[in-house]
């Protein structure tokens, strides 16, 4: 119970936002891609990902590698193979519909009107080709066609296939209660076992049915018979009722005509809830998993040092932190995400002992501190003073054998340096950078910077950080 309370108190508002945003993204993916092949492949990929995790946890090294490879390659394949489907989903809808809209498949195909129209056209021996797409995308298979988007009526259907209509030879594609496209060209079946009286229209119907999950109704212009193509089967329909049932069975409105919208809403609500549950599960496993431990050496930062003081020495430069979290989070930790900061606002001049608590340590979300070594740091605070030090030139290099440096003068001869009292007590000389002798001869002047060592020293305001050197070189006796 106590653990539960601790756990609840550690949840931040960012975590809620994290879960909500990702649940919504997942939910929108479902809404946009449901019913398409992309969605089914995505589910397959998710299953593969879970299999990979299981393989890893069971220690099946090669299996996990193989599955990981399949998932990685599969992600690229999805984008390449289903580029048209993805483009259609993203392009056909505006931003609002991508982010918010719901396309209820509420439009019920008026099977009775279609069946009536088909039988009337058959009676008149008016050829027709009507396509009812299944769940597969037809855009890669069907060529040409004229966008129509007209509501289905008996007059509309018969007029499309009227012999004088320019699009009557093509197929009409029906989605919901609309004729979406007319004059579409379907792939022809290459089967050689078809009856000889079957014409191009029959081969086109069978060609599409063989390659996709669409249902195609074909009305023969010569014989006036009605056939339904589904899969590799071409079935003759004699009764209007049978045709209606075939269409209803295919479009999925046979049993749920009345409650279709309600069922659709229920399905979307369930999808939304499942998205939340799924993402929450992933979030917990990623951010609250405590299965991995890591030890990091983190340098200690000292903050809020009082003016006029400086750190002379510390017992440690870095501390060792043992952190735990889920494998994914622990692997993603970089040293710059972890910080140890000690507040020196209450430290006094002289030795101080400061405890390191969790308040002094900043960690990425989801990472828990297990241990700090050492948990106490000794800090020797020094008073800042100014000290005037003589400048000495740090000559380097070599003069030619016959020459010697007989004199050199620096201007200024001394500089004022600011630093810790204990430190400056030990320093009696300040040196210039290395000044090369190699190219010097005769008499001359040059400038050199002053080297501050250790780096905590600073040149006092008003003092120069460079010196001018006058030198005199003569021949050796």
């Amino acid at each position, binding site marked *: 119970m106590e653990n539960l309370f601790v756990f609840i108190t550690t949840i931040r508002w960012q975590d809620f936002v994290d879960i909500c945003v990702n649940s919504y993204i997942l939910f929108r993916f479902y809404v946009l891609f449901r019913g398409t092949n992309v969605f089914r492949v995505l589910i397959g990929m998710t299953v593969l990902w879970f299999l990979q995790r299981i393989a890893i946890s069971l220690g099946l090294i090669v299996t996990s590698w193989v599955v990981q490879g399949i998932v990685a390659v599969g992600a690229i394949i999805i984008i390449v193979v289903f580029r048209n489907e993805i483009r259609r989903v993203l392009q056909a809808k505006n931003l609002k519909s991508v982010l918010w809209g719901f396309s209820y498949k509420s439009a019920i195909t008026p099977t009775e009107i279609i069946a009536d129209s088909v039988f009337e056209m058959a009676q008149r021996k008016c050829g027709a080709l009507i396509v009812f797409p299944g769940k597969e995308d037809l855009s890669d298979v069907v060529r040409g066609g004229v966008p129509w988007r007209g509501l289905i009526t008996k007059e509309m259907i018969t007029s499309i296939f009227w012999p004088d209509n320019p699009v009557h030879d093509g197929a009409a594609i029906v989605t919901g209660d609309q004729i979406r496209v007319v004059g579409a060209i379907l792939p022809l079946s290459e089967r050689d076992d078809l009856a000889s009286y079957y014409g191009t229209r029959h081969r086109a119907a069978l060609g599409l049915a063989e390659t996709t999950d669409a249902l195609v109704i074909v009305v023969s212009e010569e014989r006036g018979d009605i056939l339904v193509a589904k899969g590799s089967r071409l079935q003759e329909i004699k009764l209007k009722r049978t045709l209606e049932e075939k269409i209803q069975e295919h479009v999925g409105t046979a049993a749920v005509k009345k409650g279709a919208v309600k069922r659709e809403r229920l399905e979307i609500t369930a999808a939304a809830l499942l998205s939340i549950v799924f993402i929450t599960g992933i979030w917990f496993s990623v951010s609250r998993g405590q299965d991995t431990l890591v030890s990091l050496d983190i340098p200690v930062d000292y903050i809020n040092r009082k003016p006029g003081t400086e750190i002379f020495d510390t017992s440690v430069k870095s501390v060792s932190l043992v952190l735990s979290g889920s494998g994914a989070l622990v692997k993603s930790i970089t040293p710059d995400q972890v910080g140890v900061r000690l507040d020196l606002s209450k430290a006094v001049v002289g030795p101080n002992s400061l405890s390191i608590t969790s308040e002094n340590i900043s960690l990425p979300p989801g990472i828990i501190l297990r241990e700090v070594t050492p948990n106490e740091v000794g800090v020797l605070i020094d008073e800042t003073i100014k000290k005037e030090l003589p400048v*000495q030139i*740090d000559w380097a290099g070599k003069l030619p054998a016959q020459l*010697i440096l007989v004199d050199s003068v620096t201007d200024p001869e001394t500089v004022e340096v600011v630093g810790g009292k204990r430190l400056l007590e030990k320093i009696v000389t300040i040196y210039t950078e290395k000044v090369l002798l190699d190219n010097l001869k005769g008499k001359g002047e040059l400038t050199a910077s002053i080297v501050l060592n250790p780096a905590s020293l600073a040149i006092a305001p008003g003092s120069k950080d460079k010196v001018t050197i006058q030198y005199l070189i003569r021949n050796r006796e």
Partner: protein
Amino acid sequence: MMKHRLYRIFGAVIVMLTFLFLPLHLLKYIDSAHAARLSLSRGLMCEDIDANAPRNPTLVFSISQKKALCFTEFDEVPQKAVIYHNWYHRDVPSAKIRLTLNPPRWSTYSSIQLRRTDIGPWRVEITDEKGNVLGVLRFSVTD
């Protein structure tokens, strides 16, 4: 006669009391005053000594020269005294050489052998027996 004897005894007591109660710290000043009288008239770094005189005064010694010498000359040496040549390599003490001065004037020198590890800036502090700095000489050892 008796009176003279009393004067002498009284005088001796006064002298004894003076030495007994003279604050010891004043002796230090007496000593310092004595040390302060040592006057460094010349101090320089050189490559060699020739007939008690420095040869090739320089501020840079190549390690190929094998040695560096510190020459010091004192004009006023009131009595036999001791000085030190304290050699520092980058502020780290390297050698402390004890030298004796004899009145009335004296010159002396010390030297160190140069090795590759000696490259860098050096200084020689000339101090008296009490550690008072009489002069500082700076030089460098290079390749």
